[in-house]
């Protein structure tokens, strides 16, 4: 019995990581209807940035990520302003093609600089620290921090989206781009700001990705798939839905693994398909989409 309870707890905690993968994807889809096929590779890129900053300055990853934030914010802004804004329009194909190309460029660029060797972010004792709950069940400190960070990120994104002027501009641009321009909103800057914020979220996701498991330049597309599944399970445009989507995916994987270790990944995909069949618009779709 405690084995099943453990699976449930670990599933919820794993869901926090998937929600972090998905939160940035959810934000940019919500604001500009951009499906970013390079999102997983951006997470891996950010993990390498944290690795390099940490190694170069001898910093713990939790400190290195703080230094990486402004750098990644600027990269995100520039990427959207200079490149991705040019791909947005009535045709859905250009952004898909360009972000797919970006994914290949990032993977090959990272392979060139860092080789295919697996890497890991090292943060000392905290990596293996755990909190015993009794009954043979323990919660890892890093997985717990991941879930708490995911909740904090979702709360912050909700605050930005629904309580600030830039959030109003995000929602207005998403509702009606033409009228948003009539309000004096420079949508190109608004979209670039959304991508910049996304890059900060990506950096947080990258921190926990690197602390919890090995990473190498080629693992981005699999993270993208989990992120997509979490966003779609939760319902497009809903941040809390994205968190729930991540948890559903995490639970499905750990319960699947509990039944048979080979079923872990498959069970996640099956849960995703089941939600698509039962509720095609996800569990918490935004009413207007």
């Amino acid at each position, binding site marked *: 019995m405690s084995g099943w309870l453990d699976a449930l707890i670990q599933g919820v905690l794993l869901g926090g990581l998937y929600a972090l993968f998905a939160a940035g994807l959810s934000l940019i889809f919500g604001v500009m209807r951009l499906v970013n096929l390079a999102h997983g590779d951006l997470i891996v890129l950010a993990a390498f940035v944290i690795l390099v900053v940490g190694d170069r300055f001898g910093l713990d990853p939790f400190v290195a990520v703080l230094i990486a934030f402004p750098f990644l914010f600027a990269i995100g802004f520039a990427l959207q302003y200079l490149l991705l804004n040019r791909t947005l329009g009535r045709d859905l194909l250009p952004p898909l093609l360009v972000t797919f190309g970006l994914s290949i460029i990032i993977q090959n660029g990272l392979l060139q600089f860092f080789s295919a060797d697996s890497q890991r972010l090292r943060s000392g004792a905290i990596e293996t620290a755990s909190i015993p709950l009794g009954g043979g069940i323990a919660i890892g400190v890093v997985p717990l921090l991941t879930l708490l960070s995911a909740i904090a990120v979702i709360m912050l994104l909700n605050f930005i989206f629904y309580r600030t002027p830039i959030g109003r501009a995000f929602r207005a641009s998403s509702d009606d781009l033409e009228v948003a*321009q*009539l309000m*004096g909103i*420079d949508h190109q800057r608004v979209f670039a700001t959304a991508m910049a914020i996304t890059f900060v979220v990506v950096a947080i996701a990258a921190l926990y990705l690197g602390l919890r498991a090995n990473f190498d330049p080629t693992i981005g597309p699999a993270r993208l798939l989990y992120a997509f599944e979490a966003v779609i399970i939760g319902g497009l445009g809903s941040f809390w839905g994205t968190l729930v989507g991540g948890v559903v995916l995490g639970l499905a994987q750990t319960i699947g693994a509990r039944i048979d270790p080979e079923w872990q990944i498959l069970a996640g995909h099956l849960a995703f398909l089941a939600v698509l069949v039962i509720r095609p618009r996800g569990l918490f779709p*935004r009413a207007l989409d």
Partner: protein
Amino acid sequence: MPLLEARKLTAFYGDFQALYGIDMTLDQGETIAIIGANGAGKSTFLKAIAGLIRGAPDSVLFDGEPIGALAASDIVKLGIALVPEGRRLFPSLTVEENLRIGAHGGKMREPKAQGQWTLDRVYSLFPILKERRSSAPSTLSGGQQQMAAIGRALMSNPRILLCDEISLGLAPIIITDIYATLPQIEAEGTSIVLVEQDIVQAMKVADRLYCFQEGRLSLAGRPETLTREQIHRAYFGS
């Protein structure tokens, strides 16, 4: 010098030419009305002024400055606001958020001599909006939505308010209420360009009338000097 001037203004949708060399002027404190049948180019004209359709720089002059090639987001900051056809409130914003976002572009402008439009002043012009300020726009009646769309445009403190078919789909009594607010807006020093299919309503409030026909200016003059036959011919063609 007129506040706003269109000079040989043309507009295209791809290969389709929607406007053919429109000349028009608007003076400070004036209200003009543009009438015409469906597809005459009235809304296109407002979009061209507001920057949603961009053309040659000197095809539109504002205070003598060429603005014809500027983006819509820059033009609203200069002081020209459009109330779009069909209201087009932002559905995911509350009524008050819709009004607040109207000030997004206006805050960059220097304060005018006239009173600034604030949330409180818009609420005093349209008290029902204050009651419904936390509501989603979709729950408002057509008339209330139109009031919110006008209020949203006023929040940018425009010197020129462009109104596209503000009577569209509304009950006559509501149209009368909304039209009754236009003199108050004009009294703040805001000039108004009305696009209307309701000729009677337009002639009541306009200082001057322009009629479009198939993208061309077919008639211009003061309402009291125009005969019924002239307007009929300019509206429907001979």
